[in-house]
């Protein structure tokens, strides 16, 4: 496999659209708000970056995320998807996802554009269906709007996913139960649940340190997470990765590419590509991305090539985040280490403590291990 970012034979791509109407208080993603005038320049530069491919690439999965891709006007969205169609053609069976903000989809012109370009999966940034939480999270839609949008898109989409956040300040388990219940009444195929983390650089972080925002206690947050796992499973969703739940045959294939270590292209500010050995990350600053592309590109900010040992450890950890875990023989064939040879006696200890479950052929997380998995990763990754 050639190690060149644009020359490789990847069959997946991610495109980052760094625009939002408003930066929510918990968000630390690569994006700009109130800079709609930059969108034209972005389209120009994205086109330049895609042209570095030199020839179009046939894809199995394509994911357009952000930011908020649907923040673009219908005309801009149309041009974005045209560029993408030109360089990244797909089969009808390919998965084509776009992230959408529910209130943007009230505009039927945008829906038409998305549909015409063959998008077959929408990931809706719902976050909650409780007015209190929506307000706290600074989201601009209402539960009613989510219903309406869902009904409008359901007939022609293969998959609908929605994001839900739990563990917001002052949240009760009952409030979260209502979220899960109301979400289960919607025609969705896939749910991603995220525990709110208050990251550096966000306005929530600042408020937390001024004591005007108090992080939810660990025990309540844990109960919410466990409830989601139990209840969604009862509702027929398969818990297939730490935060992902799907109805049969509706897993997100694009994300599975990330988790299984397959190569992918990344375009746009902050996007990463992966050749299977090397990761290249574009500049996270939108204006820096523009400057680099306008002087011939690429817009790579940093690259990382892991040695065999480090790569195997990373793969072990990322793979264990999938509930099916690792097939031991498969892991050894692929990365040249047995899991025990790689991690050493610590692994036996984690198995003995019941955080990991080893059978003859597999290694996977237990429920207890899942709940504190970051602590496990720290132990596994330490040298």
């Amino acid at each position, binding site marked *: 496999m050639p190690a060149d970012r644009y020359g490789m034979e990847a069959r997946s791509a*991610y495109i980052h659209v760094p625009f939002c109407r408003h930066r929510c208080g918990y968000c630390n993603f690569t994006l700009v708000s109130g800079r709609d005038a930059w969108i034209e320049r972005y389209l120009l530069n994205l086109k330049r970056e895609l042209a570095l491919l030199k020839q179009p690439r046939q894809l199995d999965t394509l994911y357009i995320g952000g930011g908020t891709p649907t923040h673009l006007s219908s005309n801009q969205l149309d041009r974005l998807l045209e560029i993408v169609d030109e360089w990244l053609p797909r089969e009808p069976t390919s998965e084509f996802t776009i992230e959408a903000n529910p209130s943007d989809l009230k505009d039927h012109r945008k829906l038409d554009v998305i549909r015409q370009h063959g998008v077959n999966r929408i990931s809706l940034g719902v976050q909650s269906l409780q007015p209190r939480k929506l307000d706290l999270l600074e989201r601009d839609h209402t539960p009613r709007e989510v219903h309406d949008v869902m009904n409008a898109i359901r007939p022609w989409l293969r998959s609908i996913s929605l994001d839900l956040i739990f563990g917001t300040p002052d949240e009760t388990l009952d409030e979260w139960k209502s979220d899960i219940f109301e979400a289960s009444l919607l025609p969705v195929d896939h749910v991603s*649940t*995220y*525990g709110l*983390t208050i990251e550096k650089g966000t306005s929530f972080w600042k408020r937390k340190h001024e004591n005007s925002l108090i992080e939810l206690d*660990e*025990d309540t*947050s*844990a109960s919410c*997470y466990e409830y989601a796992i139990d209840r969604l499973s009862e509702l027929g969703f398969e818990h297939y990765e*730490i*935060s992902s739940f799907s109805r049969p045959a509706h897993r997100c294939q694009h*994300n599975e590419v*990330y*988790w299984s270590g397959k190569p*992918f292209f*990344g375009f746009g500010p*902050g*996007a*990463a590509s*992966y050749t299977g050995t090397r*990761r290249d*990350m574009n500049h996270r600053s939108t204006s820096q991305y523009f400057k680099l592309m306008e002087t011939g590109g690429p817009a790579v900010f940093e690259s*990382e090539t892991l040695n065999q040992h480090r790569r195997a450890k*990373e793969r072990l*950890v*990322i793979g264990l*985040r999938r509930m099916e875990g690792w097939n031991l023989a498969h892991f050894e064939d692929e990365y040249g280490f047995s899991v025990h040879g790689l991690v050493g006696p610590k692994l036996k200890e984690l198995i003995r*403590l019941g*955080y990991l479950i080893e059978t003859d052929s597999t290694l996977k997380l237990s429920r207890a291990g*899942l*709940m*504190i*998995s*970051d*602590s496990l*990763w*720290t*132990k596994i*990754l*330490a040298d």
Partner: protein
Amino acid sequence: MTAIERNNIRNFCIIAHIDHGKSTLADRLLEHTGTITQREMQEQILDDMELERARGITIKARAVAMHCDIDGTRYELNLIDTPGHVDFHYEVSRSLACCEGALLLVDAFQGVEAQTVANVYAAMGHDLAVIPVINKIDLKHQRADEVALEMEQSLGLPMDESIRVSAKTGIGIPDLMSAILKRIPPPEGERDSPLQAMVFDSHYDEFRGVITYVRVMNGTLFKGQKIHFINTGSVHEVLELGQFAPKRRPCEELQAGEVGYVICNIKSLDKVKIGDTISVPGEKSGTALSGYQEPPRMVYCGLYPSDGQDFSELRDALTKLSINDPSFEFEPESSDALGFGFRCGFLGLLHMEIIQQRLEGEADIDLVQTAPNVTYQIMTKMGEILEIHRPQEVPDSGQIAEFRQPIVRVNIVIPEEYVGAVMKLCTERRGVQTGQEYLSPTRVMLTYELPLGDVIYDMHDKLKSNTRGYGTMDYEVIGYQPADLVRMDILVNGNKVDALSVICNRGDADRRGRAVVKKLKEEISRHMFEVAVQAAIGSRVIARETVKALRKNVTAKCYGGDISRKRKLWQKQKEGKKRMKSIGSVDIPQKAFMAVLDTGEAGK
């Protein structure tokens, strides 16, 4: 320059509470005697700051010689500065031994403070002539009359003897000058007697080595002389001697009664002990002056490198520090829980904080420090006396005949309305009241005898918070007394952590045990397993708390480009354990080691 007649020399110091204007008064005297011009004053101040920076803080005495001519007679005034903080009692006493008089400087608004009282008594103990000086009389809210009365009532200094000045504006400085000449007696001593010179301070100069500050009591010191430091036993040759004016001014000799400095190519400060006597080697040697002692280390603590830090780096840093500060001592020790480290002795808590800050600031060493403790004494049933510098050294209770703790006399000066609150505080700490005195109709001085261990950690903070910042205190050690003391151990998941043991009063043990385990529970973060924290006396558990196992620690999102960032984050958590020690498999942060100081008193 011709030598000054011994009768025309005056050696004195200034006693003052912090912020009562000591350095301003010193500057004014320097200026009045023409020792320094106003223009030079600026430079002088800068020089001083340099020196203070090099030493960390103004903790040491300094000396400056001033001259003035009155009615055709030339006088020499030697001002010996004394440190103000209670940690440096011993240095203060050596400086006082070099003086015949003291200016007691009191702020015309603040009045007499506890520290002032303690230092005045110390000066009187050395038979010094004390001149009461009321400063800041230019202030709008000055109450000089009342303050004069306070001094008379509390210190027995007659009201009409006080001199009123403003060091800031210069009012009253000539009156003060003549009072110094008239009321302070000239030094005694004979220039032809065997040499006896008192070492009252020293500092390290990177070009000249140790600069030793001396007061010649008898005999004469001269250039080229062979001298003998009686207590340390070392012999050196005088390369240079002179006076500070205020910069070093070399001269040929220093006679009985004079104050100055000596340089003898000594490369380490620990070779020059404060309070030592300089004489000549051989038969003509004088005897040692009384009062010499090792600097008393009042507080001990263990310093250990954090996980992943190097023991030898810490040792090198401590060695380097001790060259500049011989009053701090350290020796290697090991702890079952913490591994290899050092037991360090300090003059007091301020001194300990200074050293710790310098270690972290200058040497960039990541430390774990155990809770400070005072020195206890144990008499064993065999009749042996043990000095206990750390709780681990306490033997089994069956071997103890008597357990003794250091007792201090504490003077506390407070506005009258806080008497009740302060008495309550002292009683809670088993204080015995020995005095109560009205300094003025509204200000009271309470005297208590209290265990040093109950005073040293947080008594000052407690006093300030109980008196809205108005209370001041000072203390001095008066001896050891038997008490009903026990060692309280802390167990983490059943394992005794020696570095967390404390010595406390048996009657307080239950309350303290509960407070300490509760505090530890807050400081120890959740682990992958439950952590039990217990306090025990001998084999009896007196308190228990449980740090619940971690319930949730999971990163939700991990996609595409984020994978490497998340991986680095997980990896970093192990490296990021600054100021931590892993004991068994439990990570104990620095703050937990201080948790054992929690007294469990109400109102915390």
